[in-house]
Every structure is written in structure tokens, then in C-alpha cells.
């Protein structure tokens, strides 16, 4: 099968029977729902750009499994150059959508599962790696979106999965049959889950023998019986339900999506099971997936940052403040922060290495440093963007007011005329364009897109402390002490 177009992808979603709930009700036509569709548009773009000669070099790759051209989102990285291109692709898509485009979790899961199943088979004599290769080939051949799902609800953080009062707070195997397993539990915060053809499930943390029923990995179609999703709402999300909403949305076309994915006793056939109680490999899988995903943030958030910097500069132009030295300096600082994140994404890719299975893994220390910076710098970038934009970003009347012809006051002017009079700024700039760029910034700084740019930067791919633990493990303090001893003339 050839690569799908964006339109074909959207049509393929209509054929699924995915169960989606929002505001306490089932959404039958979720593909066209105004709150969900912007996130689908992001994924459609991952298909369309793969057909465009100007973007093909980043958006596609040659499969090591089949030799065919595949979308890079389903590719197993074959070199450090592939890892670098992954980050560049993510920056590109961040620039084009200013949103989370949701397809990275699957790519990162494929690569982590590929190398982990190889090493698991080597130790335990299992047959997961060949199964997984067949699965990835199927995904590549059919150009599907897969939600790589890791995060469990986790309940009481002070106790292990098996010690939870409710054993379902971590996804687990509840029955082993000759032909497969039955699983129960949930995955939280699942990026793009509703828009995914398939789910690839991984354990959420390292497990011990007592927790072995939680050490489970498998793939499943998104519309099987017992599997359903509850849509995660976002700040200002109901603006998308307003009639003819446009300017007030900030970014009408694109957006992100997270959902709670529930497994209510779902049967998984054996050929789709890739870990079944091998608890000693759950830590490796988590560490590798997290490493790839922390690399990812050095691309996607940088692309979004590019758009924010551009919007802030536009806002300054429209306000007539573009020549002020402090504005120029703030734009420099935003660029410095953004490109620092990119440096980290490129560095952990360039320093990658071949796994035993043959695909390439990022440098874990540098990937964790990358993500640690991502938990901080976007916050400073949006702070500076808000500084440059001015308070009007959050106090401006609605689009309907700017367009209203209702006469108010004593001089016969309409609400729209009053708004356009008092919100005019630099010569030659329409109030509509000024309003558009400020609404764009509002959306990304504290509206529905802030989910993707701010809080996802904090907690996505692991919260800050998770990276600090990895930095501590990988930091090699002992070697640094030896360096100091040599130069200080210390002999012990």
C-alpha cells in the first residue's frame, strides 16, 4: 500500500468504530466534532507533508524491514542521521501546526519495543521480536497512526501496582488464555488516542516480581470491544463550539488532544502480545521510550516556539513597538532559549548509538537534559510573549463585538465601530489582524494550545523529577571527581 494522503487518513478514521465520550455523552461523529477535529487536522498534515517534495526528505524514510518508503513516524531509526532527521521533522510539524501533532508517541514506542523485545527474547527465549517486526511491517505497509501508551492512572504514588487498593489503577493482565490475554485498567493523558488506528501499550514503570501481571505490552485496534476513550477537556475548549468561531480561537485549524483510554477486560490475541510478565524488562522499555520521547521535545516544542516568537514579533509590529530596544532584546532571548532546546534535541541524536537489535537509540543523558530544559524554557518563552503582546491579549472584546453593527452611545456608532476605533494601533494595521495575532498568543499561552506548549512541556515524557533521576544516574560524578583530583594534585 502506498502512503495515505491526509484526506484518506481522515476517511480511514470514519471506518473505525472507536467509542468516544465527551461531556458525559457518546460522540458518534467524533471525526467532525469541532473540539476534536483540529487535532485530527494535525495528524492529516503528517500525511500530506509526506507527499510534498519540499518535505519528503524529513517526512519519509526507507524501511529496514521492507525496503519500501514509509512515513518516518513508523520508521525504525537506522543511524544517528535518522535520529537527527526525526527531530528536524518534529520542528517542521511544530512550525506548521503550533500544536502537538500526536504521532510521535507511536514512533517512539516502535523504536523502544523493537530493541527491548530483541533483548528480552535473548534472555528469556521468547518470540516477541519477530512478532513485533511483523506488527511494525503491518503498520508501515498500511501507514497507520499508533498511540504509544505508557502512563497508568497510578493511584497512590506511595505504593507499588500490586499494593494499590484498587488493582486496576495500573493496567494489568487479568486472565491468560491459550490464544491470548485479557487486560484491564487504563492509560491516562493519551495524546492523539482517539485519532489513532491502533494502541501500543507499554508498562508505566520498572516492575518487580510481585507486580509481574502489570509487566505487559501489546498492540490492539482502537475500536475493539471493551476499549473506550473519555476526551480530556482543555482550557477555553468550548470556544470551538461557538457559532462561526474563528478569530477568538487563535488557531482555528490545529490543536492537540489527550484522552483517558479505558480497557474494560479487553482480549489481546497472542500475536499482538510483546511482553507478558517479563517484569525484568519493563524498566528497560520505559527508559528507552522515555529517552526517545524526551528527544522528541527538542524538536516539536522548538517548532511551536518558532511560531510563538514570530507571533510576538508581529504583535510588537502591530502595536508599533517593534523598534524599542527591550522588545528586540526579548525576541533575542526567546530565540536563544528556543534554539538551546533544539541544540539539545540535535545533540542527543548525534550522540546516539546502535542497539543490539540494530536500530538507533539516543544518548540518554543528553535526552534527559533536553527534556529538563523543556520543562522550563517554554514557560519563559510564553512569559516574554505575554510581556511583548500586552494586556490586551486577555482583555480584548470578542470577535462578535468587533463585527457588531448594534448602535450604542450617543454618537450613532456601532459596537464594532467603537472597538475598531479604540483598538487601532500602528498605521496600516487592521484591528482584525491585531486581534488575530493576540488571540493566537492567548490560545498558546493560556488557552487550549497551552495544554500542549506549557503543561505538556512540564509533564509529557515524564515530569521534571524523572529527568533528574536519569541525569543523576547518567551524570558520571565519579569520573568528574577524578578529573578534579588530577588537576588539584590530590593523591588518595
Amino acid at each position, binding site marked *: 500500500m502506498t502512503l495515505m494522503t491526509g484526506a484518506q487518513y481522515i476517511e480511514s478514521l470514519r471506518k473505525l468504530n472507536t467509542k468516544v465520550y465527551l461531556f458525559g455523552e457518546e460522540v458518534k461523529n467524533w471525526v467532525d466534532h469541532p473540539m476534536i477535529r483540529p487535532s485530527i487536522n494535525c495528524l492529516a498534515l503528517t500525511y500530506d507533508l509526506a507527499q510534498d*517534495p*519540499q518535505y519528503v*526528505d*524529513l517526512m519519509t524514510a526507507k524501511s529496514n524491514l521492507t525496503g519500501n518508503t514509509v512515513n518516518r513516524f513508523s520508521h525504525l531509526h537506522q543511524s544517528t542521521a535518522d535520529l537527527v*532527521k526525526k527531530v528536524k521533522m518534529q520542528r*517542521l510539524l511544530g512550525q506548521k501546526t503550533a500544536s502537538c501533532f500526536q504521532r510521535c508517541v507511536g514512533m517512539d514506542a516502535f523504536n523502544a519495543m523493537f530493541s527491548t523485545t530483541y533483548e528480552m527474547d535473548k534472555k528469556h527465549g521468547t518470540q516477541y521480536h519477530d512478532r513485533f517486526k511483523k506488527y511494525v511491517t503491518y503498520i508501515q505497509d498500511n501507514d497507520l497512526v499508533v498511540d504509544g501508551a505508557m502512563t497508568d492512572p497510578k493511584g497512590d504514588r506511595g505504593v507499588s501496582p500490586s499494593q494499590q487498593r484498587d488493582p486496576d489503577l495500573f493496567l494489568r493482565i487479568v486472565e491468560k488464555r491459550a490464544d491470548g490475554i485479557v487486560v484491564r485498567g487504563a492509560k491516562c493523558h493519551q495524546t492523539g488516542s482517539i485519532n489513532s488506528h491502533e494502541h501500543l501499550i507499554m508498562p508505566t514503570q520498572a516492575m518487580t516480581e510481585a507486580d509481574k501481571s502489570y509487566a505487559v505490552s501489546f498492540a490492539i485496534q482502537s475500536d475493539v470491544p471493551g476499549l473506550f476513550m473519555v476526551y480530556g477537556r482543555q482550557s477555553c475548549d468550548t470556544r470551538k463550539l461557538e457559532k462561526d468561531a474563528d478569530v477568538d480561537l487563535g488557531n482555528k485549524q490545529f490543536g492537540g488532544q489527550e484522552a483517558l483510554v479505558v480497557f474494560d477486560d479487553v482480549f489481546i490475541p497472542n500475536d499482538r502480545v510483546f511482553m507478558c510478565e517479563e517484569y525484568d524488562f519493563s524498566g528497560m522499555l520505559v527508559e528507552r521510550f522515555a529517552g526517545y520521547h524526551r528527544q522528541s521535545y527538542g524538536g516539536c516544542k522548538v517548532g511551536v516556539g*518558532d511560531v510563538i516568537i514570530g507571533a510576538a514579533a508581529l504583535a510588537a509590529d502591530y502595536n508599533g513597538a517593534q523598534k524599542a530596544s527591550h522588545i528586540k532584546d526579548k525576541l533575542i532571548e526567546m530565540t536563544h532559549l528556543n534554539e538551546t532546546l533544539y541544540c539539545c534535541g540535535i545533540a542527543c541524536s548525534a550522540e546516539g548509538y546502535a542497539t543490539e537489535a540494530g536500530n538507533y537509540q539516543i544518548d540518554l543523558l543528553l535526552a534527559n537534559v533536553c527534556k529538563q530544559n523543556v520543562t522550563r524554557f517554554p514557560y519563559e518563552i510564553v512569559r516574554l510573549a505575554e510581556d511583548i503582546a500586552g494586556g490586551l491579549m486577555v482583555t480584548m472584546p470578542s470577535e462578535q463585538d468587533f463585527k457588531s453593527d448594534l448602535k450604542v452611545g450617543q454618537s450613532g456608532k456601532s459596537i464594532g465601530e467603537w472597538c475598531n476605533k479604540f483598538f487601532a494601533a500602528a498605521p496600516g494595521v487592521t484591528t482584525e489582524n491585531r486581534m488575530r495575532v493576540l488571540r493566537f498568543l492567548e490560545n498558546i499561552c493560556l488557552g487550549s494550545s497551552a495544554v500542549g506548549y506549557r503543561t505538556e512541556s512540564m509533564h509529557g515524557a515524564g515530569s521534571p523529577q524523572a529527568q533528574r533521576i536519569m541525569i543523576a544516574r547518567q551524570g558520571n560524578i565519579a569520573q568528574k571527581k577524578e578529573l578534579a583530583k588530577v588537576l588539584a594534585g590530590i593523591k588518595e
Partner: protein
Amino acid sequence: MLIGVKYCGGCNPRFDRGKAFQAIKEQAHDDIEFKVAEEGVEYDYLLVIGGCSNCCASYCQYNVKNGTLFVWDGETHVDKTIDNIHKMMK
């Protein structure tokens, strides 16, 4: 003359690569044909258009008889590339 065209992926281009290519195409002689590069096709030359000095597009997979031209600066490389193409035709 058949020239294969390959773009980098455009992650953060410093200029409009599509416009640069259009400028080259419009100023090139009529008997030069530009086609998006494909594997398995033989080209007289390959034109690689990168958005920055890294010019990271992969191009070794293409079958090229006479050489590869690189464009990664929208201001200075367009005219130079047209000159080079015309010189190569002589």
C-alpha cells in the same frame, strides 16, 4: 538536459526554497527539464535545495551522470546556479 530536483526536509529554512527553485526554473533555458528526483531515473545533473548551510537532504540514492548542484542561500546561490547550469550546457 534533465535535472533532478531534491529538497531538504525544510525544518527551519532561512529562505523560501520553493520560490528559489521557481526563480531558477524560470531563468533556465527552455530545453532544460526539471523533475522531482526519483530513484531509478538517470539525471544529467541533480539540484539539491537546502534551507540552510547544512543542506542535509539525502541525495546519494539518485543516479546522476554529471554532477550535483547545491543551493542553500536564497540571496546568492540562485543566480550562481543558473550561470553554472548554462555553463555546463556548453
